[in-house]
């Protein structure tokens, strides 16, 4: 079987040296083809004496398998080399522009409102809605703002044509989201944790800083041990999350008939971190919202016993927040529908 060793050596050498797939194919025919050297040897087995045939057959088959494996391995190597050679010749322009996939924009007020809703939801506040055409009762009386109250001056009201109702008074476009304090207490009772984002209206001339149509977010928390300190805590948490950085809040006395004590809340200027700059008029603080401990008249109007429950409410303007955040200088853009504005907030 010296021949066999020679054959193996020769074959392996030739395979090793093969440079291309066609020449490898030729070799495969030469050794393993129908008339190939190994095939011929296998075919000639039957001529061997029986005592040698078995052994020789085994050897031949082992060699055949070995050669087959070697061919297949070499084939893969050569294929890979070929592909690499081909790819290296190809040209492809990756700088050609990507296929245009346009998307629309969501109004920045909607986006911000959702952010606000999400943060409060996570703190267990429910999101409540109420009518935009509201009665004087809910808009004023229920909130401890009787007729002739000077506070009605602060809220230039749009009145709806029509006759007043005995209990409800006249219809107005709600001047704030606060009517929902009483509505929500009537509906859900206490304890209560809710916010009401929504559209409000003031009968005042528009300019870059004033709109007759804008949005507020009302908030209310009624429970047993709810204090000014917790209002400070919740608002600090909310604003810090919203702005993505630690924000400080402070209170000043403020007057809203539906809260007592009544406060204004400022937060530390985001630009200068409270050091004082142009944006905050050198005070270090930015005026943000009105708030306070819910007035006992309002609790009673909502059917909640002020001896058992106490809580607070707040209300802030969404437009002001968005304007401050993005440096928008004219409030009229929000309802103006100009796509050059809308599209900046994709």
């Amino acid at each position: 079987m010296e021949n066999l060793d020679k054959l193996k050596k020769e074959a392996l050498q030739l395979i090793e040296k093969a440079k291309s797939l066609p020449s490898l194919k030729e070799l495969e025919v030469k050794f393993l083809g129908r008339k190939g050297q190994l095939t011929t040897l296998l075919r000639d087995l039957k001529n061997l004496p029986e005592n040698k045939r078995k052994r020789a057959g085994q050897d031949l088959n082992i060699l055949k398998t070995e050669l087959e494996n070697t061919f297949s391995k070499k084939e893969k190597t050569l294929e890979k080399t070929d592909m690499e050679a081909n790819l290296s010749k190809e040209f492809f322009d990756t700088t050609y522009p990507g296929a245009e996939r346009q998307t629309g924009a969501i109004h920045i007020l909607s986006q911000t409102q959702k952010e606000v809703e999400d943060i409060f939801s996570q703190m267990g506040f429910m999101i409540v809605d109420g009518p935009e055409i509201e009665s004087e009762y809910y808009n004023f009386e229920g909130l401890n703002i009787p007729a002739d109250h000077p506070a009605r001056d602060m809220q230039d009201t749009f009145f709806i044509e029509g006759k007043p109702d005995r209990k409800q008074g006249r219809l107005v476009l709600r001047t704030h989201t606060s009517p929902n304090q009483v509505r929500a207490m009537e509906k859900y009772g206490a304890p209560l944790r809710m916010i009401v984002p929504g559209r409000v209206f003031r009968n005042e001339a528009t300019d870059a800083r004033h709109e007759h149509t804008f949005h507020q977010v009302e908030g209310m928390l009624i429970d047993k041990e709810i204090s000014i300190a917790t209002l400070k805590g919740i608002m600090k948490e909310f604003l810090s999350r919203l702005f993505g950085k630690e924000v400080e809040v402070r209170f000043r006395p403020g007057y809203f008939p539906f809260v007592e004590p009544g406060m204004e809340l400022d937060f530390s200027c985001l630009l200068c971190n409270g050091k004082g700059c142009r944006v905050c008029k050198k005070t270090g603080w930015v005026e943000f919202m009105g708030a306070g401990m819910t007035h006992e008249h309002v609790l009673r109007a909502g059917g909640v016993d002020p001896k058992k429950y106490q809580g607070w409410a707040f209300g802030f303007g969404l437009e002001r927040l968005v304007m401050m955040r993005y440096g928008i200088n004219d409030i009229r853009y929000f309802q103006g529908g100009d796509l050059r504005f809308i599209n900046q907030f994709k």
Partner: protein
Amino acid sequence: MYVSLEWLKQFTSIPKGIKPEELASTLTLKTAEVEGFSEGSELLDGVVVGQVKELHPHPNADKLRIAMVSIGSSQPNAKVVCGGDNLEEGMLIAYAEPGCKVKWHGEGEPVVLEKVKIRGEESAGMICASEEIGLEKPKSEGPESILDLSAMKPKPGTPIAELLKLDDTVFEFDNKSLTHRPDLWGHYGIAREVSAIYKTPFKQLNPKPKLPTKGDKLKVDIHSYDLCPRYCGVVIKNITIQDSPEWIKKRLKAVGHQTYNNIVDVTNYISSELGQPLHAFDRNLIKKGIVVRTATKGEKIKAIDEKTYKLTEEMLLIADHENPIAIAGVMGGHESGINPDTTEIIIESANFNGANVRRTATTLGLRTESVQRFEKQLDPELAHLAMLRAIELILEVSPGATVAGPITDNHAPKKKPRTIELDPARTASKIGIQIDKAQIKEILTGLQFKVTPGTKNTLKVEVPSFRAQKDVSTEDDLIEEVARIYGYDKIEPVLPSLPTKLPEENPERTVKHDLRKFLSYGLNFNEIQSYSFYSKDDLENCSLDEETHVKIENYLSEDQTHMRTTLVPNLLKTIHSNTKNHPEFKLYEIGRTYKDIGEFFPLEEKWVCGAIHNTDKNKFYQAKGAAEAILRYLKIPFYKLIPSCEIPYAHPNESITIMAPTGETLGMIFTLHPQTAKNFSLQSNPTLFELNFSALINLAKKGRSFKDLPKFPGTLLDISVLVDKTIEIGTLKNAIEKADKSLIKSVELFDLYEGDNIAADKKSVAFKITLQAEDRTLKDEDMKRIQEQIFSNLQKLGGKIRGL
């Protein structure tokens, strides 16, 4: 409201070292918002009167001279290089020494003066022109001249601020933040707060003018104590109308008042000092005594603004026995006012019903300083104090004046002071911080409440009359007093410990936010917002009926009179305004509509309205596709699309109504009516959809289910048919589906052709049909049978199968 620091100091002291900005910020944090303050001028700091002792030419400059300036000593104190062309030896000038701030040529930010060399000569400080120290340049002062003070003959060294009486600091309070505090509408009240905050003594006013016990006593007749709880009046004789003394003028000017004459100025002075408006009448123009009554029907009065006001029967008047002489608490009458010949006056210091004053003022459109104060409901006690103070001042400013008789003081029965129990535990619970009883007591006492021990652990708090009107009436009101003076800034933020509880869901909100994402990011629409109202023209341009509209009574402008019943008109206006910047776009709005449905509250519904503006001939189907995608997204399981719709601004042919199985209209898809497009100046007709979001949200299918994937292969069948143009795709589709309802899984239109090579009244339509059985592989016979049935159904419609 303006408050002068110097005036405040008359009633309390301010601890040393408290600068105006700190006082302003402390008052803002504890009392009411101080919007700003103006100090005489920062630029006058350190600027004093100087005298030019010697004047020499500058060796290196023609226009400059060297002045030796003295600020008090006989020897010159400073050598100053100066270019002032009016400079003379002996002149008294404004001298700013190094370290002072000045504005170069009156422009830009102030700069700090330093010792410098000017053209080689040392110069210490500056001889100032008016504008360089923030003063208005008088006409007499030339452009290259400096301020010449010689005429005033001041002593060198006198601060300029003092000389020009600009040394006061004036704070401006935000009136809105004083809405609930009638006691803060004068210096006296603000001083009381300052004294409580800084724990400095409060100097109570205690005017004690000499009053006769007998004599000419004014007759006052009050018809209703409800409308006029108190009226104090007095007659003063031998009055000389003349200019007020400088100190009164200075204070009035500082707080923004004009000055007129000694008597009118005193009434304004007291209004600003105590917050009690006064009125002075010329006694000789008053017939007999004073009557406080409501107006009779049709009664008129000419007020001091020389306008005549028609009064209603609710309005309170001050009258004599013949005519009205003032609108109570609002404005005095023209005929009875102080004039240069006045020698005898009546001083009125009264208390009126705030709501009534406010109503009258609102009806007449008169918002005076007097109204601002009275409408807050002033303290009746203040009327008497103000009267005494007025007499005291008038006797001072009109030498020789004499009080004619005792003060007339008619008032409603006095109320007992209000007392409130304050529970320190409740105070702690509401504020969220422990403040001990002694400290609570100290704070309230500082604010002039009387505090005594109450029952159990509480405090009994007596409210002073100046806080007892509408201001402090409950325990919470006292808690506010404690909290603000204690300091809101000392309250640490705390998160409430509340049980973990999922908030009640608001699916409408959630879906609305999701839908926005779908519309904007999925369907490439842009969200806009628009006003809730439109004009009569708008609704007419949309051919809408006015009837169901909710109307605004006091609208701001003619184009905002009706509440919208559809989002379309405002969306069309938005389309129009965007066309000049964008050739094509897709818009939507999610917003409310408002309809009068005959009940007290109008019906408010939320609608989704979308519009497609482009030149694509398929844009109706783009709108239809978008609307159907939304319905699918909202999981609306059953609805019908009915051709045509009832809205007047929709194209009569190119429109669809989306209907619920109940027959309720869920929405519309349409091309805008060409007339409406024309009315809104739109060049091309946009296509739109309107979906009733409020209705749809209730129809949404809850939950989802899974259907196993088909186990047996399906077969595709392409069929092309030539039919009359007027046969609808829907009809053809139905005809195909009818062929085998169980095995035909889908029918898709994939080609529609009209034009060359086919008859003008025909169209060629091609469908891709999927056949599939759930329980077996389809055989050739199945396919053949269905295909023949389809052919036959289509042929019944006059169709010619192509390729057959």
